[in-house]
């Protein structure tokens, strides 16, 4: 038994961690394992992405780093993607239990009391951007709340605003604000505090804390007075987002992609010490426009700009063929 040094199982690539990043990596992993052929238009179809290949999906991406294709149609190596939280992902990565630690907050915010050098071995790969939305219950939106200022959000989460009538854009009846947060220690919570309240350890007052983003969404859907933050992937009809107004600028869904949007956060795939060829093959797939279109956009996250993509790609080892 003892310490498995590389990954939980030989041969396969394992990732675990953030539930926010999970929709991306999980879809990527699932398709990787299915290894669709090149003529599959829906999920692979390399030609659509200016990729010149007739290989199956995983065969192609793994092939870039010299992994041999299988005759059986199976990928050169399998992937397994765990669902957990940022903290768990990073910890498992550190303990050598997984190859990739998914994180929805930077490692520095997740482990605020660690020194630079302690954080050094975490190699950061940003794979997408989540412009963390402010979401409210449908009923609140219906009562006119289509935008909210950053100060109001801060007031709500610091316990200064407790009734919706205190929010300017709201013109419905008096109603208590139900403040919903994510569990402490989750990446989503950490980045929200970091971005909105200015400190990953800032105090906040909430009415309930949900373990996962999906629970936040369900709670919004069931309530008529709630406000919450989650990931873009979890916005729904009954749990709509509202525009955030910062210094007079109203950030709509479209404008959230702009780098100035203060709640924007990067979604990370950390690797340990180096990036192995296996890890690189998988991350390269996600970083490629193919991956951004196939995995990031359907999950409602924002793809990286070309510039940032190039920068992230440059951190990966060069493909061997």
């Amino acid at each position: 038994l003892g310490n498995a040094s590389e990954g939980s199982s030989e041969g396969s690539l394992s990732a675990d961690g953030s539930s926010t990043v999970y929709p991306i990596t999980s879809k990527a992993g699932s398709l990787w394992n299915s290894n669709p052929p090149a003529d599959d238009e829906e999920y692979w179809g390399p030609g659509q992405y200016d990729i010149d290949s007739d290989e199956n999906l995983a065969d192609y991406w793994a092939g870039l780093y010299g992994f041999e294709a299988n005759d059986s149609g199976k990928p050169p190596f399998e992937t397994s993607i765990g669902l957990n939280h940022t903290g768990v992902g990073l910890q498992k990565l550190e303990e050598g239990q997984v190859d990739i630690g998914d994180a929805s907050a930077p490692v520095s915010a997740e482990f605020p009391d660690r020194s630079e050098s302690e954080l050094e071995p975490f190699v950061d790969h940003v794979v997408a951007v989540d412009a963390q939305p402010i979401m409210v219950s449908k009923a609140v939106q219906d009562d006119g709340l289509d935008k909210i200022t950053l100060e109001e959000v801060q007031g709500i989460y610091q316990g200064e605003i407790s009734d919706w009538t205190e929010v300017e854009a709201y013109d419905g009846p008096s109603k208590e604000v139900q403040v919903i947060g994510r569990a402490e220690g989750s990446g989503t919570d950490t980045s929200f505090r970091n971005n909105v309240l200015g400190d990953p350890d800032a105090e906040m007052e909430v009415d309930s804390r949900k373990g996962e983003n999906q629970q936040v969404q369900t709670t919004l859907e069931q309530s008529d007075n709630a406000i919450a933050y989650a990931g873009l992937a979890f916005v729904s009809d009954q749990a709509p987002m509202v525009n955030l107004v910062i210094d007079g600028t109203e950030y709509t869904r479209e404008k959230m992609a702009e780098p100035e949007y203060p709640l924007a956060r990067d979604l990370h795939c950390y690797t340990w010490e180096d990036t192995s060829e296996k890890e690189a093959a998988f991350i390269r797939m996600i970083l490629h426009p193919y991956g951004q279109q196939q995995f990031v956009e359907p999950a409602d996250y924002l793809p990286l700009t070309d510039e940032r993509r190039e920068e992230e790609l440059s951190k990966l080892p060069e493909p061997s063929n």
Partner: protein
Amino acid sequence: MSERSLQYQSQNALTVEHSPTLTGLSVVPIGLFLVAFVVGSATLAGWLGFESPLFGLALETVFTALLFASGACLLATGAASRLEIVDTTPDRSAGVGVASGFGFVAFSAIGLTASQTFGLGGVRWALPASVVGVLVAGSILFAREDFGVTVPSGLFSLLIGGLFLFDVIDPSWTFSPAGFGVTFFGTVFVPLLTIVATFVGAWAAANAFQGFGAAGRQAGAFFLIGTNAALILLVLVLLIAFIVKNGFWYAVDGMEIGPGLHFHWPFVMDGYDVFLGQKGIFPAIVGTFWLVVGAVVLAVPIGVGAAVFLTEYAEQGRFTSVVEVATNGLWSTPSVVFGLFGYAFLVPRLGNNTSLLAGMIVLGFMLLPLVLITSREAIKSVPDEYRDASAALGVSKWETIKEVTIPSAMPGIVTGVIIGIGRIAGETAPILIVTADNPQRKFAPAVLGSFEFTATPPFIVNDALLSGSSALPYQLYGAITTGVVGDDPGYGWATAFVLLLVVLSFYVIGIMTRMYFRKKLHA
């Protein structure tokens, strides 16, 4: 004969005859309660609304009418009994229990009105409340039983009905007790109060039905206890029906049977695969299967062995009582504590990762006390005659245990194990902590195919056992908390349906096994 003439009571008639009047009067409130229960529950569940009339009557009118009818019937019953129009056998008093019950109702009602409606703060509301409460209790105590039972319950119904009639409480009424952050709406309160008041009335009527006295109190008590049993049945049926209704069609979607041996049940037999468009939970089912197998393999030999040792070999003493305390302690240890323990003890020692094996062991530990306790009972209940008979034939203890004791205890042991399995198969918390990793798997853990021999210790490894796995309860947890399949609520219900199907099958099989063996033994 002299001593017997001291007797203070003449003999009563050997037969009792209840007049049809009494029977008629007392059956009505019970029927009214049933109607109120059905209509009220339907209203609470939102199937009936106050906007839409029922048989041309406003819902509020229906409730008011029910209450007045019930109250009137009860008062009439009380009067008829008191005036001896009908033959009853009431006691001198309804007793302290009834008196304090109604006293408490009066106390709370006055207290609430005083504090919430008239805003009497502090404890000033307590004074009028106590006075009225004591008055009500006292007068019930000193009234004859027939009055003490019917009048307060009848008045209670009439009072509530009056509140409805004069629109003191109507569907638009609201009540927010200060500081609780809760609002009682008339839409909920009206049906709720109707059910409660008619229920009290039905209890009183059950009392009257048997002519009060000891027989009446028995009828009242049996009515309460019987209603409780019926409600529990109702809850069970509703729970199951609800899950089935929401999950069944999703779960059986795309099921194909035939031709020939072809059988495909996508939700149950497929894994999760984006590319193939499969959204099945096969890996979770297999995960649960292996968890159960592992737990059984671990717990059954230890549990049965310990049970045999404790019953057949150990002297009753300090050692056995320590083991008993430990067993009962294990039985009541919360599952999440088992999870933490597994995380601290097993995970670091089994590849430092969440794993199927860790889950098996933790669930095995949870199953252990169940197996031990039930096996012990079963072995204890093997008649000593068998053991004596065997000993008298010169057969040793161990042979007796193997050949006679354990086979005779087998039905009990098997039943215990099956029901124990049902229980652990539904456990979520420990799995969450020591086994779970990816809820969306394509392939089930291939435990059998993963054994490998190595040259270094431990010489035999099984990758599947040492990796994480999904399991049905975890799958359901995943569906609730992380929306693993996006906006697809049916997926969660279908998972719940399959989980329930698996767990309850174990229970049903266990219970039927026991019934079968009981019948066989008694035949």
